[in-house]
């Protein structure tokens, strides 16, 4: 389900270099939301989403499987940073229960568009036993993982999109 996806963005060799490199295709693996031991059993599962930006229209497709309870909703959210949860901004369509697919096209405002390009937008899938979040994943420029233990030149994918000064790179 999570085979390496096609490379559609242009970065690498030397690593992704920051906000200046805007991609049209975004992707994310969906993994468990932040959880503690008491929540763990209800936030299992896995998934993947891909999102294509055309102007201000963001078309999202994806799939998921292995939920402990039936999926109840899936939405786009926007926070104040990559990995920082925020508020729902758009309802996506859902099909299936413990496994299924995700789809939808959102018209993004200029603020939401800026958030997307900074990596602040994420997909969150909610379920009956985890109504406040079962799986999530931040939409980041689509990238290829060469495989476990396969070295890349430079630091590989390092999505530091929203840090001024570009201090992942040479001064």
């Amino acid at each position: 389900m999570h085979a390496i996806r096609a490379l559609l963005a242009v970065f690498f060799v030397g690593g992704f270099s920051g906000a200046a490199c805007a991609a049209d295709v975004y992707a994310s693996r969906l993994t468990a939301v932040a959880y503690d031991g008491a929540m763990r059993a209800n936030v299992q599962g896995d998934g993947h989403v891909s999102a294509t930006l055309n102007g201000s229209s963001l078309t999202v497709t994806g799939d998921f499987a292995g939920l402990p309870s039936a999926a109840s909703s899936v939405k786009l959210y926007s926070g104040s940073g990559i990995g920082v949860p925020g508020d729902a901004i758009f309802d996506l369509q859902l099909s299936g229960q413990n496994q299924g697919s995700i789809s939808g096209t959102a018209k993004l405002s200029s603020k939401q568009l800026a958030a997307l390009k900074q990596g602040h937008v994420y997909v969150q899938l909610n379920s009956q036993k985890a109504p406040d979040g079962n799986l999530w994943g931040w939409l980041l420029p689509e990238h290829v993982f060469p495989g476990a233990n396969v070295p890349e030149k430079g630091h590989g994918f390092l999505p530091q999109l929203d840090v001024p000064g570009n201090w992942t790179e040479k001064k």
Partner: protein
Amino acid sequence: MRHLGKYLTGAAVVAAGAWAATSLAQTAAAPFTAAQAEAGRAAYAANCAGCHQANLAGSGEQPALAGAPFMAAWGRRSTKEFYDDIRAEMPYGKAGSLDAAIYQNITAFVMSANGAKPGTTAFDGTQSVQISAIATGQVPATIVNARRGGGGDEGGGGAGRAPAMRLGQILVGNIKNYTPVTDAMLVHPDPKDWLIYRGNYQAWSHSALNQINANNVGQLQLKWSWAMNEGGENATGPTIHDGIMFLANTSNTVEAFDAKTGELLWQNRLGPLATRAYSALRSLAVYEDKVYINATDAKLYALDAKTGKTVWESDIAPPGKGFNETGGLIVAHGKAIVGLTLCRGQMPHCYISAYDARTGKQVWKFTTIAAPGTPGGDTWGNVPDDMRAGGETWIAGTYDPELNITYWGTAQSKPWMQASRRSGTASTLYANSTLALDADTGQLKWYFSHAPGETFDLDEVFERVLIDHGSQKTLMTIGKAGILWKLDRVTGKFLDARQTVFQNVYNGIDMKTGRLSFRPDVLTQKTKTWISACPSAAGGHDWPPTSYDQKNDLMIIPLDQSCNMMLGHDVAQHTGVVQPEGEEKVFFMPGTDGNMGRLAAYRTATMEPVWSFQQRSPFLTGVLSTDGNVSFVGDYDRVFRAVETTTGKTLWTVRLPTVVQGNPVSFSVDGKQYIAITTGLGGGSPFSKPSSMLGEVHHPDHGQAVYVFALPDKMN
């Protein structure tokens, strides 16, 4: 830096009776029986008391499970949540290993220990009753007065605890032809030896041996192994001199072996027996005719290298106050220099101290927390002296013999979160700093505060690697935030920094001063509010240390990728008992595809990344590089691996019986090069995070050992 657990605990505390107001409320009968609570008492003693104490008071970073601290953390949650939580996460290192009925009984016991009244209905794991509706937080006297356990002061089995065994010198050695280790030998170690925990004073973890190289490493064979003690945490690395391996085993056991054959030469079980928490011994040291070990109960021992007999012992910290020391030590200029850990809720503050290597007499100490009225004391704001905590030294320092300066990193200040700590973004000296101390006097030469106001347990405490670029003497270090720092080690001046993993805590750095700026919502944080942090408290980079290959100018860094949400509690400004100061939820780091492990190489002159690779499991050993262009590293998924130093390409792997954890070393005997590595459990956040997050990765909950590899006697 250690296992954060889900409920962060801290130094601060509540005066006795702080819960009294609410404890007077009438409570309903609880959904468990008296028989369950009684059975749970025994199960708790066997599986939980090693960390949380027999009186449920908690210890160090292991939270209290009774009284006001417990009710503050759990009062608003349910019995089912508590049960689900301990079943998913406990016992530490053996999550989910007990029968459901045992978890139910432990839940019943903990509730009863908090004043809940047993009823007639047995708890079966499904009853969801708010804990504050059944428990008062008033702890029965029989539990309050239960003998303090954990911290290494008793053993006798149970999850994570060492099985009962006889302490003392089990085998007396009679080593002939032992050459005393001189200062000159420590400054210029013979490549056949491994005299210092990181290979040399500069912490390079590099061997100049090259018999094992990129072309033949695939032929490595196991030559010998030794089963180490079960129980406790194992994250050690051997020391080798004159063909003798000295090993810091768990339960404060020190052993000497013939490094070629694995024959045991002497064994001294100093004790106390290990518990799961805070019982790792990262290293020992050799100097002249003695072996030095800092025991987990904060005692320093000097043993005769030839016999293993104790020559002298000295208290590093006042006994019986909960101090601990696991970070190892160095001997420099005739002094054994050692740190201190678990400094919270008790005085004195943490310090670094030095002892005459021949007599054990304390020579100096440097306190890592600045008191009011002393230099740096104003950097804590109005926080009272006895509420200033942290500044532990989890890793032994390094040493520049030319400058006669020893360099140490310090841990974050506590409570972790700014909002709980009430110190704002002040630098809370000397927490999260690099300290440069005169090795003879302990005088502070300079300090560099890496992360003033840090708030997510992102320590900058790990190895200080000393690297020269021409005439420029630098110090490089990397902490949990994953920022690789370069400082001038003569002056402490900031030179450079580079991010090595994704992080979202800091949104910038002043490249002239090295001053970090926080993400805005970090600065406006409030208690009782969840806030995100990447990396999590497992790092970035944690205790598994880097290696430096000078010929290729490559620093090879084990990195860890996970995130967390943290919630800070209001922490009462009183001292006394351990109190939960926050809570934590974990999640996978964005952009990693679920890969927690990353190994990366950086050219230190330019700070440029040269290569990196990722994998599902995090690396739980330090890196050993060699002149054979081969580097070794081990991981949570039991894989011990050799990679080509210059490219990162995997050349050889072997699957060991359990988690590969510790510090690989290399040495030679009779012209043959060997590689040694340990397996081990425990290991703090870098171990506990994958235990919780990588459900498909399995390992036995035993199997601590040392393994020694070499090429075949007859090569293909």
